[in-house]
């Protein structure tokens, strides 16, 4: 347990567990709402937010969170009236975010190295103040799912029945997108922009392959994510690997095992 004797590792594991659990729970609902690709779109949109915060010299976490929240809700707004298809709107913010970051890189010299650090993240470099922000965000995300769990289950089943049972569909979609935006910003801290959407998609997808109920899908997704975070950080620590790659690699290995189990059992 030499691993746990280091402060930075403890912070990394705590951050990873909170980010992993929050992303996995959000992922179950996003996949079932056919919004899995939203994670990839928002993480790349967040790249633009990070670039702006660098340029302005303000805390990247808060400004990026606000920026991603704004972008996510704009996507929801323009797709809710069905004038723009959801996947096309996500592709729009995906490329828009990267374009914004590239522009900022071109205008303001000297940030390139720092900005590229966000592409792959490093969970072992989380500071104490970042850990506090992650903890607050984690509890907000859990609170949201605890309060609206049943309404969200109904919403993933049938919008029409949900509407009739007094679920405010538009408001609920905006809240889910806001939570997804927050979770994406947290995931960027853990595994970087490129792999952030994996935190949302892979554990949830694994859980949906083997779960026997909605509740068990949420629990399995959280457990798969937590297990992969600990495994990834341990592998990164002992074998000097990039933590983001090791965490997501662990998630994909678990998905592979679950997929195999599903194929063999059917």
């Amino acid at each position, binding site marked *: 347990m030499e691993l746990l004797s280091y402060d930075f590792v403890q912070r990394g594991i705590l951050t990873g567990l909170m980010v992993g659990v929050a992303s996995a729970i959000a992922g179950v609902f996003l*996949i*079932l709402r*056919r919004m899995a690709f939203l994670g990839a779109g928002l993480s790349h949109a967040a790249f633009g937010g990070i670039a702006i915060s660098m340029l302005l010299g303000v805390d990247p976490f808060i400004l990026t969170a606000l920026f991603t929240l704004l972008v996510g809700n704009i996507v929801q707004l323009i797709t809710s009236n069905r004038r723009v298809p959801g996947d096309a709107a996500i592709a729009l913010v995906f490329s828009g975010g990267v374009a914004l970051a590239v522009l900022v890189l071109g205008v303001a010299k000297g940030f390139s190295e720092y900005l590229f650090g966000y592409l792959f993240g490093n969970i072992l470099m989380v500071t104490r103040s970042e850990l506090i922000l992650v903890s607050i965000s984690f509890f907000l995300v859990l609170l949201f799912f605890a309060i609206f769990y*049943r*309404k969200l*289950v*109904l919403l*993933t*089943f*049938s919008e*029409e*029945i949900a*509407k*009739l*049972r*007094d679920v405010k569909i538009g408001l609920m979609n905006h809240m889910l997108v806001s939570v997804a935006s927050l979770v994406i910003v947290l995931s960027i801290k853990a595994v970087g922009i490129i792999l952030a959407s994996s935190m949302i998609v892979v554990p949830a997808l694994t859980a*949906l*392959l083997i*779960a*026997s*109920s*909605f*509740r*068990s*899908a949420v629990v399995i997704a959280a457990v798969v994510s937590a297990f992969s975070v600990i495994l990834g950080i341990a592998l990164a620590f002992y074998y000097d690997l990039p933590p983001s790659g090791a965490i997501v690699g662990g998630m994909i290995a678990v998905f592979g095992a679950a997929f195999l189990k599903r194929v063999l059992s059917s």
Partner: protein
Amino acid sequence: MYVIEIEDLYFSYDGKVNVLEGVNLKIDKGEFVGIVGPNGAGKTTLFKIILGFLKPTAGRVRLFGKDIRYFKEWHRIGYVPQRLSVEQNFPATVEELLRSVTTEERIREIASYLHIDLFMNRQFLKLSGGQQQLVLLGMALASDPELLLLDEPTAGLDLHSQMHITEILKDLSANEGKTVVMISHDIGMVMKNVDRVVCLNRYVCYFGDPEGAVEPIEDIFGIGRSLKDGAP
């Protein structure tokens, strides 16, 4: 006061072609009504307007005497949609679905009434078509509604399941005093079981007893004398 009262209703999706034109309908409490009509006749659209999902282009809809624009008591209405578009790995069990719409006590009442106790812990998507329809009916009954709207509740079911669902609907109407309005393509089943038939083909061609519905149905389906002759 009628449960559903529709006056001179018009609806168009694109502002050019009317899906519904001049629809008039008055449905009383406790009636079991079957709506029949060819594909594209506006049956599902009519339901969506009654449920407030679509706004009429013109005309008036009243539910329990109240204009639909101001109607808020949606718990008085239960709805079974035509088809669901859930993800293929949607994991929720029957119990979880019912729990998402009602209380434990009501779930027990519904499960006992519909005899779905045996598969409460099974995943919805792993049930047979008939069992899934029973669960959807259970969800529609969650708030103990006075009006039930069902969009093709027996479509694609085997004969036994069709009869089972139909018997439940008849019981809900006759013994529980609920108003049941059902869209169906199964004309034989509709004619045999409902109190009144609505023949819809953009407008209401006929609204009355099943006995008088034979000719209007032949007309809107363009099937000549086949119904009288016993042909399918």
